[in-house]
């Protein structure tokens, strides 16, 4: 088990015109022992580069990487005691499942008997004992993922690095894999860094989430903190489906979640209400909930209701809506950063 830390970690690539492009720009990150840390961001934000640097597959331009309090900048991947699961699972196509899992043990020159014991243990945890003789091409996506995980845990690494391991699964399988993966990590207790662009995975699995955009960390926090108290407009709109509504008012931007936006007539008490004029345009019925698309002061906004709520609104007609004061987040109009304090 180990902590993982990055200090002012930077990776600069050379762009097409020969100019420097920062894939990762001075990231400071401290991951606790046994923590499930999710790196969340849009594609191309640098999260995978960050993970690859921690894994030793990319060399940082500057800054330090520490695993278990040791600087590992110049150590090759094999000396870092890490295990990585790639998006493609990267199973060795020419080896059967048993030999795939045995691969890291053979590299470590473990005696055959001991190898067998470890492989059986890993296969048992992931429930793939009956697949050991198969070749990777004979496995389904979910089975491949389990084999890749078994290969990752078999040599008891200090850190797991997972690069979008669920993105190759179909939607149904993904939900159960999310659950399995998190339980599995809790049981093993190994420090895990998980890269994804899927906010549902991030929210559902992470102990903490680091939201990354354009090579920099925008916010680090628990899923609740990230969702309820976004540090800037990027985080506010990147998380949440549909995202937070942002409305310009005076010299600042007001942000509120669609589920906190409702007709003023439905409010019980009125003392902490902030009134907003909403013009509904279109409605989406999603089974459990209902989304109403419209605009506030000419800006797109969405309101979300449980399907059980009955609404009497007509398209194209202004309605008095409101948000409770504690649900209203204020952001700086220039920087997009959150403004704290009384408003």
């Amino acid at each position, binding site marked *: 088990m180990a902590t993982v830390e990055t200090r002012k970690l930077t990776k600069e690539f050379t762009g097409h015109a020969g100019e420097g492009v920062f894939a990762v720009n001075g990231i400071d990150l401290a991951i606790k022992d046994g923590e499930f840390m999710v790196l969340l961001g849009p594609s191309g934000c640098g999260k995978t580069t960050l993970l690859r640097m921690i*894994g030793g597959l990319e060399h940082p331009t500057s800054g330090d990487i520490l695993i278990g309090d040791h600087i590992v900048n110049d150590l*090759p*991947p094999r000396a870092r005691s890490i295990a*990585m699961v*790639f998006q*493609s699972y*990267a199973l060795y196509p020419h080896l059967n499942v048993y030999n795939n899992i045995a691969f890291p043990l053979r*590299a470590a020159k473990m005696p055959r008997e001991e190898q067998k014991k470890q492989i059986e243990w890993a296969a048992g945890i992931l429930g793939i004992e009956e697949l050991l003789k198969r070749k990777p091409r004979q496995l389904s996506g979910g089975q491949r993922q389990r084999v890749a995980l078994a290969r990752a845990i078999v040599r008891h690494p200090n850190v797991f690095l997972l690069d979008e391991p669920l993105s190759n699964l179909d939607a149904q399988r993904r939900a159960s894999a999310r659950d399995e993966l998190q339980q599995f990590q809790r049981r093993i207790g190994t420090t895990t860094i998980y890269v994804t662009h899927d906010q549902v995975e991030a929210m559902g699995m992470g102990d903490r989430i680091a939201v990354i955009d354009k090579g920099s960390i925008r916010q680090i926090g628990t899923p609740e903190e990230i969702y309820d108290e976004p540090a800037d407009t990027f985080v506010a709109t990147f998380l949440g489906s549909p995202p937070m509504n942002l409305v310009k008012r005076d010299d600042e931007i007001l942000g509120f979640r669609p589920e906190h936006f409702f007709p003023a007539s439905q409010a019980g008490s009125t003392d902490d209400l902030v009134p907003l004029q909403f013009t509904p345009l279109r409605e989406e019925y999603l089974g459990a909930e209902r989304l109403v698309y419209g605009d506030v002061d000419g800006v797109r906004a969405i309101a979300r209701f449980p399907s059980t709520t009955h609404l009497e609104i*007509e398209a194209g007609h202004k309605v008095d809506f409101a948000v409770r004061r504690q649900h209203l987040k204020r952001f700086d109009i220039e920087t997009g950063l959150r403004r704290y304090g009384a408003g």
Partner: protein
Amino acid sequence: MSSQLQPIAPPPIESGPGISYNPRTARAKRIGARAALYSTAMFFVIFAAMPFAWMILTIFKQNADLYQQPMQKSPFSFWGELNQPPTLENLRFLLWDTNYLVFVKNSLVVGFFTVVITLLLAMPAAYALTRLSGGWGESLGIAIFLVYLIPPTLLFLPMTRIISELNLKNSIWSLVVVYPTFTIPFCTWLLMGFFKSIPWDVEEQAMIDGYSRFGAIIRAVLPLSVPGILTVIVFSFTLSLHEFVYSLAFVTSTANKTISTGVTTELIRGDIYFWQALMAASVLVAIPIAILYNLFLDRFIAGFTLGAVKG
């Protein structure tokens, strides 16, 4: 919630030909297409196999059958009033009364060393060009491939200088030095295509799993490039086997000749052609290669197209 949007009508479709389907004519068309396909295929089979068939039949012909009048004698038959029965005499002559077996041995030796040298140099070159050299790799790979296109009839002049400097004139080792000059560029390019098709992830996974880059290449990349390596072996071997210009230019003594030059100089004496032995000498070499090529044809094409699409 009621919508206030005006419906947008799509532009009307101008009238065109309707779709008609007549099962009878469709069936006739299908049969016609099949017939055309098979007759074309048959034509090419005959076109390709006919020379071989003729060569093989010729091997067993007696001289009188080939040379004597009347010309009504069938070149494809051994029986009947005019033709004489088949004979093994020509094969015996080729194998025991000429240096054919020496040529075969020389060709095998040259081929073997050409293959080994090609593999040793082309594999690291191709790997480095695909994985390590960034944007330069592809253009450099194509540049190396272009070297292959310089005809040997031009290159043998400067090569002669090198061979005599190395004191390898009139030795099969001169060919071992020269042949890799055209097998390596081509095979490097060919292997680049194969290496590109191996996911980089697998190699990085091997490095994560505890191997150095070199160890990862040996354990994860090479097992996956077996088709490419076999292609290179077959290709460079056959290339060295049928090479003629260098072999003619650098080797003069009978004992050091390879098949391609030996057969044509030993079995054609002045204006006398030992037709049956010539045919036997060619067929004996051509058949194994044809079989090898057929076994690897798919991989060959895969290799070429991999290179074509990605490199």
